[in-house]
Each structure stands twice: as structure tokens, then as C-alpha cells.
């Protein structure tokens, strides 16, 4: 871990000012990812700007019926917030599928979006990794890649984005509010995370001088028919091999609206509008779910150790859609899959 300076941001404008003044500074929120990366010498910020005292902790209804979540709302508070539990149970469930209770208590909403990949090589400075050190090579492509991506990969990087919460946010079509030197802007969730391409060192489209201030959820919460199913190597406290967020609007025995997002399979939460379109208007049954799954996975590509994810994802999609359609969502505190 390197030596670093520490300062506090007085308000959002001050935070932006401070980060703009120092190329090698970093914000610190819960610190659950950043501090680990510093201990591994992967991140070496010369200054940490503590943003935990900024007034970004509110969860409040918006005028158009949605909910706005401050960037510093802890993951646990968000998951157990009555508004979220009642109107966005898919989000609550996805959050509770992640990490451990202690980590969720510390982790912030903004930090969760910006957590970095769990690719084993990214964490180990003794090995080449394009994401950590552009141009050094990708060790995972021909190495240990059992947990790596099967969709949207590039020659340069096959890492996944590890967040559970973000998979639900992608399905719910949240927007990310950010502030920077030239003011505020909103980023659609689908545009927030990037595919690796040949710049895998850039995870997101957030500029280095910007701060996330809030996440906004649109009014539609799919509270009736939804499920978040996470498949992992132990029953808790492990990153997803594959996870699925399914949100359906069912009316008169037919699916009127459908959202399907996958975690653990790509550099960003993976959505496929064509696959979702196959569900729209259909009677919710396994054959349709399978068709949607096949569509979503049609370009999936397995590597030496992770090809199993393709079939696993297919099965998980079908199961999660069934859970959502039957209004029997997966319950994260019960480890039996419904």
C-alpha cells in the first residue's frame, strides 16, 4: 500500500474541485473495494478525498413517481428501505444477494457501481493484465478464466463486472446522476458501464473528474413479478458465476413488458432487447423463456474453463423467468432455489 494524503470534501462542488485538482486522487466512500485494491498495490492514489460526509444519503420519491437514491446510501439501508422493499423488491433482493452483511453496511450506492472486476489477475501485480496496466496483456484469456465473461468480451479483456445491485438497476432502467466541473448530467444505466474493447482499463463512462450524486429509479418497479437469482460456488458470500434479474409485467395471462439482465457474464450487466422482445406479448411459459434465453446467449463464447456458464446461464434465465412469472421470487435468506 502506498502513502497517501487524506482530505474531506465539504460539499459536492468542493469534491469536484478537489478531484479536478489532482489527477491521482480518488474518492473514498465505504472503502470496501478501494482499500483492498490499495493493499494489493493495484490502486495507488496519492490522495483520498473522503466523501462520506456529503449530504447524499436520502432515499426520496421524485415528482414523476420514481425514487431517487443518494450516492452514499449504504447498500443495507437501501435494501431494507420501505420504499425499495415495497416498490422495487427486485433491487432489494439483488443487493442482499451480494457480499456479506458487514460489507453491505459499509458499501455505498455509488461505490457499488464503481467496484472493479474480480478477475484474479487484476488483483495480482505480479501478472500481466490489460485492465490494470494497459498493453501488458491479458493473463486470463489463456489462464484461469472460470469466472470470466462469455459475452461482449474482447481480445484485450474478458473480465466481468461483479456487482449484483447493478444487474437489478440495469433491469429497472435506472439513471445515474453525476456532477463534474462542467455541471451535472444524467447517464442511462445501459450507457454507464462499458464493454472492454481495446480500452479495458476504463470500466465506465464516468469521467475521472465526476462524482456520482444519485441513482434515480423510474416509476415502474415490477413489484408483482420479479426475481433475482444468483448462482455461485458457495451458498453465500461469493461472486456470481451467473446471476439473473427478471422483471415482468403480466396482464390477462400475457407478458406485457419484460426486462432481463444478467450478471457475472460480461463486463457490464448484460441486457438484450431482442431477447426481451421475444417475451413481450407471449404467454409466460418455459418454451418462451427458453427462446429468450437462447436469443440472449446466441453470441456467447466460452473459454477453456468457463464454457459451462453458457448452459448454466440458459437454465438460470429459464428458472428466474419462471420464478418471476409465478410471483415466487428467490428469497436471498433462503438458500434453496425456488
Amino acid at each position, binding site marked *: 500500500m502506498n502513502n497517501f494524503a487524506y482530505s474531506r470534501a465539504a460539499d459536492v462542488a468542493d469534491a469536484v474541485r478537489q478531484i479536478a485538482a489532482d489527477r491521482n486522487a480518488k474518492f473514498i466512500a465505504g472503502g470496501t473495494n478501494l482499500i483492498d485494491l490499495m493493499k494489493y498495490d493495484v490502486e495507488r492514489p496519492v490522495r483520498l478525498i473522503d466523501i462520506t460526509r456529503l449530504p447524499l444519503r436520502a432515499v426520496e420519491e421524485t415528482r414523476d413517481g420514481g425514487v431517487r437514491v443518494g450516492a452514499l446510501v449504504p447498500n443495507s439501508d437501501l435494501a431494507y428501505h420501505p420504499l425499495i422493499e415495497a416498490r422495487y423488491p427486485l433491487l432489494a433482493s439483488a443487493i442482499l444477494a451480494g457480499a456479506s452483511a458487514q460489507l453491505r453496511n459499509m458499501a455505498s450506492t455509488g461505490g457499488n457501481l464503481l467496484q472493479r472486476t474480480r478477475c484474479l489477475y487484476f488483483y495480482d501485480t505480479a*501478472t500481466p493484465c490489460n485492465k490494470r496496466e494497459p498493453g501488458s496483456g491479458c493473463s486470463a484469456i489463456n489462464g484461469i478464466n472460470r469466472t470470466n465473461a462469455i459475452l461482449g468480451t474482447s481480445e484485450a479483456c474478458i473480465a466481468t463486472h461483479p456487482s449484483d445491485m447493478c444487474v437489478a438497476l440495469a433491469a429497472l432502467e435506472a439513471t445515474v446522476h453525476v456532477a463534474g466541473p462542467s455541471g451535472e448530467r444524467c447517464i442511462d444505466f445501459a450507457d454507464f458501464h462499458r464493454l472492454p474493447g481495446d480500452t479495458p482499463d476504463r470500466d465506465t463512462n464516468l469521467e475521472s473528474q465526476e462524482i456520482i450524486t444519485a441513482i434515480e429509479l423510474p416509476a415502474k418497479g415490477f413489484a408483482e413479478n420479479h426475481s433475482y437469482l444468483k448462482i455461485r460456488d458457495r451458498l453465500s458470500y461469493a461472486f456470481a458465476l451467473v446471476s439473473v434479474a427478471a422483471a415482468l409485467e403480466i396482464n390477462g395471462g400475457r407478458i406485457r413488458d419484460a426486462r432481463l439482465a444478467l450478471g457475472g457474464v460480461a463486463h457490464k450487466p448484460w441486457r438484450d432487447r431482442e431477447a426481451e422482445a421475444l417475451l413481450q406479448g407471449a404467454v409466460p411459459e418455459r418454451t418462451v423463456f427458453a427462446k429468450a434465453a437462447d436469443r440472449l446467449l446466441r453470441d456467447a463464447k466460452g473459454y477453456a474453463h468457463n464454457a459451462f456458464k453458457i448452459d448454466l446461464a440458459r437454465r438460470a434465465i429459464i428458472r428466474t423467468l419462471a420464478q418471476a412469472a409465478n410471483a415466487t421470487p428467490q428469497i436471498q435468506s433462503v438458500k434453496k432455489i425456488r
Partner: protein
Amino acid sequence: MTSSIGTATSRVDGRAKVTGRAKYAGEFNVPGLAYGAVVMSTITKGRIARIDTTQALKVEGVIDILTHDNRPPMASDDKDYSDDVAPEGGSPFRPLYDDRIRFNRQPIALVLAEDWETARFAATLVQVHYEVEGFATDLHAELERARAVDKPVKPRGDASKALARAALRLSADYLIPAEYHNPMEPFAATVIWDGDGKLTIHDKTQGVQNVQRYVCGIFHLKPDDVRVTSPFVGGAFGSGLRPQYEVVLATLGALKLKRPVRVVLTREEMYGLSYRPMTLERLALGASAEGALDAVMHEAIAMTSRNEDFSRNDTAWAELLYKSSNARYVHKLAALDVVTPADMRAPGAATGVYALECAMDELAVALKLDPLELRLRCYSERDQGSGQPYSSKQLRECYRQGAEAFGWAKRNAAPRSMRDGSELVGWGMATGVWEALQMPFATRILLTANGHVEVSCAATDIGTGTYTVMAQVAADMLGAPVDSITVKLGDSSLPQAQVEGGSWTAASVAHAIANAADDLRKELLALAQTMPNSPLQGLKLDDVVLADGAIAAKGDTRRSIGLADVMRQAGVERIEKERGSDFKEDDKHAHNTHSAVLAEVKVDEELGVIRVTRVVNAVAAGRIINTKTATSQIMGGVVWGIGMALHEEALVDHAFGRVMNANIAEYHVPVNADIHEVKVIFVEEPDSVINPLGIKGVGEIGIVGVAAAVANAVYHATGTRVRDLPITLDKLARPTGSGDLELGQSRAAKQ
């Protein structure tokens, strides 16, 4: 007075541990403490061409940086680096000794600073230039070069011929990956330089006197000048049997700086210490149609380092357990560019019995026999190898009580025949076996006139409950309440002890306490008989007991004198007795503990997610001193066995020779959600042969057989046999008989 032995006594050190009063090696604070941070090699093999410390030394607060170039002198002979647990004839690793790199994450420099953060920061600035050499870390690529090592287990009959003739043959390869101990407490040493060449060393270890001898050997110091303590150990599981490098580095630092130095290893650094070696177990069983074993062939191929041959008896267990007139055992080692593997909970048995018990399950399936019934048909009342009877063996009772508690009779034999909604249900079982060893230990009992008792020994309590069971044994021997007894452990200046391992401490130490208590009673009787009108006049040692703070005639408590009175009358303040556990070598019996493990798994049929919903472990391990701490030991073993079956695996990238999941986020062990019902049964097993108290010890037996029971249950649930651990859900989905390792070519052929 009621006996304390056999009761569920809470840990006597529990309060100290939960309140933080119990001090661990890295928690001894002394003025002037300097902190060391380790620099590890990032290559697997080669030499250090140059270490550039300029930048690091410039950091304010850095005191010094030790490398092989500038360290204090160290011994140059292999024997000086040996220790009680070192493999014979090897060349033990010497930390910071020379410029050779022998394994990845080898310690190559120690940055010493005024505080830990500075040391750690400066360590990142040390620049190392290497000359890199080619290396081998993959066991699979080295199988051909593996050499056979001598084992006490000898062949019987002609196994090849018998196998060829057997009505039913089964051969299969099983694989256990390298597994790491991952104790909660990191390895740490605080070395205090006392001046005059004297050192006080607080080290995380399972053997303080072993570390004392080792440090004296390396630095040519006198035993009187080196005191090693390890009063509490936050788990070690075998990783602390041999002295580890933190104690060498901290001692080097203290000698160089002439001030106290602390070195605490990071989790990642602990992946450069020791581990259970990856082992390929090749089993071939030949049986008659009735389920009699005609032939057993077991070959184990394990990894070791280039400098030491570490091996345990993986193949010994088949020969012990089951009747078979023809058997052959081969143990091979493949030398790799790695640090030497080490003992880890039930070394050789956790792995060897896993393979054996899975093979027995496969045989039962092929024979269309209930797996438990097959074990009974092969049951042996004698150690099959030596032909000796057991000092006691209640394995049959383990099977019976375990099966009854589990409800085994309701099992439907066909795979995939039992289900619960969307889950397939599987029931599997396995036998567990371990040795009941005893070692020479000595204890001292100090009785003071106010009735207080202190029992001491250089043994360590690695979390198993040694403090507590020693207090219980002493309480019974001295007729005193447990809370009047103080136990002192983990200090090299105390009476002699072996390393704490092999599940031998409880039995050995209990024996030593009983001996010392006898001496004490003898002296008290002599003193009591010198009293005027002593009610004990004329009684012999065997006629008196210590009970309720008094010495009394056996069976007649009216003839008694309070110990305080005896001592006051005689004018003695304290009586101190030290004795060893001088039990006679019993070469007429085999001494073992046994268990029957039954497991239930539920596997989601569509997704392959595995849950171990129930485990019953019925254990026969002689007399149980403390049913509470013993239950915890067995339960811990079950949890670990579940992890071995489903989770644990060091992921090594052989392009780098490096463990890639060197942290406990990515190296998986079970978490709470993975553990459901665990029931521990202790089967009564009186044993008047093994030692007077009938004690065997229960540390390791808890894990043996668990992984096999789970694996067999997974097969029963799914019909898919996964032989290479851990059983992850992707392996359930792969076509049978294929896989990365090309294992699973089991052939069950009927002639």
C-alpha cells in the same frame, strides 16, 4: 465428588478470549517495537540478481532493510534448520539465506520501520531484479517423473493376480487439490531483544520448544537464552507444527537492530507457507460377487518440494480397515518448484480415505449392495496390516448408531430416486479412521496451602481446548473443583512437550497429569501419616484418594484430613511434582479412532446447486474428556470436510507458478449458509489397554470420511460421479468420464 472428565465443561479460557485478555503472538506490546514487512518473490525459480532498496530506505521511518546480502549470520548446515516435524534427510528452506528463488512468494527481504504502515509502504518500493529460470509446478505434468517412497505399509499376497481374477473390478482416479490451512489468526512473531544475547520470542506455533530448538540451531544460541511462548493460537491446523518464516525474519530483525521486532504476515503471504499437497489417488478394488474384497491396490502420487520429501500415509488406511488377502500400496512423490507441503488436519487420511471410501461406494453400486452393508462385510476386527487386535474398536456401533440417527434404513438405493420438490436428494456414507497416538509429555503440578493448584506444561492450546481438558483431568486426579485449577501452557520454560498435533496431546498430557498427581498424593499421604493421631495411619497409597480438598481413605470419607491442614501441620507452603507420561509402548495392539459419517445433500436438478442439508458423524474415540469441546472439534471437522468436498481449491496458474486465489474472498471455505444440520455422536468405547484413563483424542477424526460421504451423496442424488475435488456445479454438468483432468474412467467390469 462427581467426575469432571466426561462432562460438557465450558472452556476455562473462553472469557479471556472473548474479552481480548488472551494475548496472541502479534499482540505483545513492548516499548521501542519495530515492525517488519515482507517482500515476496514474484517469480517461481531463479536467482536474485539485485535488490535495489534505495527508494525504500529514503522513506521516513524506515530503519533498515534486511536481505540475504546484509542479514545477521545464520547457520550453514541443513541439520541446524531441521525441526521435530521436518521430513528426514531434507534440506529445509532457509529464509533470507541466499540469492536462490525456490518458490513463488518466497520471502526475500524484510523492511523494518517504526510503524507497520511505513514498513508496508516501503516494501512496495523495493525493486528486485531476477534471473529467471524455467520451473515446474503442475503435478499432472510431472506424474511420469514421480518417485516411489518407502512406507511402512507392506504388500500382502499378489494383488495384481487377485485383481485380474476378481469377479468384479473397479479402478478409479481421485484428485484432491492443494488446500491451504487459512487459520483466522495470521502467522506472527514478536521477538524481544533482552540484551546479553537473550531473546524472548512470542510466536504463533504449535510447538514452543520446537521453535526454541530451531531458533537456537539457526542462530547458534543457547537454549537458556531463548524463551519461546505461544499462550494462545488462533487456529493452525498443522500449519504451525514446523517453525514458519515469520519467526526467523523477526529474529533476524531483532538481532540486527538490537531492539524488539514484530512481523505479522498478510493473508497473501500465508500462501507462501504450507498447504495440503495436491494428491492423485489411484484405487483398484477387486471383489467377489458377495462383496468380499479380494484385492486392494492404492497408489498415491503427491506433490512435494525439491528440497524436502514430505509425505504421509495416504495408502495406509485401506490396509488397516478392510479385510482383503491381497493388497499393494505405492506412494510416489513428484518434486516441484514449490514450498514444502505440510500436515493439515488428518494428513494422509483426509485425502487417502476420501479416495478409498469413494471407491468403496462405487464398488457397492456395482455390486448392488447397500454401501453400509459392504463395509460390514469387509469389517475387520484386526488391523489387516499387522494382524493385531485393536485396543478397542467400536466402529460397528458407529455404523449402527449413525445409521439410526440418520434414518439410513429409509434410503432408496437407486441414484436419482429420491427427491424433494425441484431438488434431487442423495444419501451417502463413509468410514473415518485415524490413529490414537501418544507422545512423551511432562507436566508439573503445584499445590499451595491455600488449596490452589497450578498445572503447567510447554504444550500449546491451538484452540482445541487443551487448557480446559487439562484442568478437568487435574480436577479429577486431585479431587479439586475445576475453577481452583490454573493451567499454564505455551512457554518453552515449562515442562517438556511435543508439538500439538496428531490428536495426541489430550491422551499424553492426561497421563502425565495422572502420574504427577500420584506423586503428589504419595507425598501428601506421607505428610498426613506423620501427624499425631492421623486417621490415615497404616494406609497404603492405593488405599487413599484425594477428594473434596482432602486426602481420605478409599470408601471411608470419615477417615480424612483436609489438604490445607496436612500442609500447615507439616509446615509446607507448596508441593511441586513434575512427571512425564511414561506409558509402556504397547506393540501388541493397533490403536485407532473410527467414525461413521452419513450425509444428505440436495441438488437442484436444473441448476446443479448443491446443499449439504444433514450430516451425522458417529465417532468412537475412547473416553471423551469433555463432550463440549470434543463436539466442537468434530463439528469443525465436518464443516471442513464439507469445504473439502465442495469448495476448497488453490487455483494455480502454472504459467506463473503462482496461487491466484491467495485470499479468503476467492479461496472458498464454507460460510454459515453452507452448513445446515450437523449431529455429533460419541459412541461409548471403553479402552483399558491404551492408557489408564482410556483416552484417545479427537482432533483429526472429525474430518476423515466427510468429503467422501458428501461426494457419495452427490452421486446418489445425481447419478454423476465427480472424483476430482472440489465438486463444483460445473463438474456435475460435464459429460461423465470427461473433464480437464481426464479422470473418471472408472471401469466396473463383471467377468
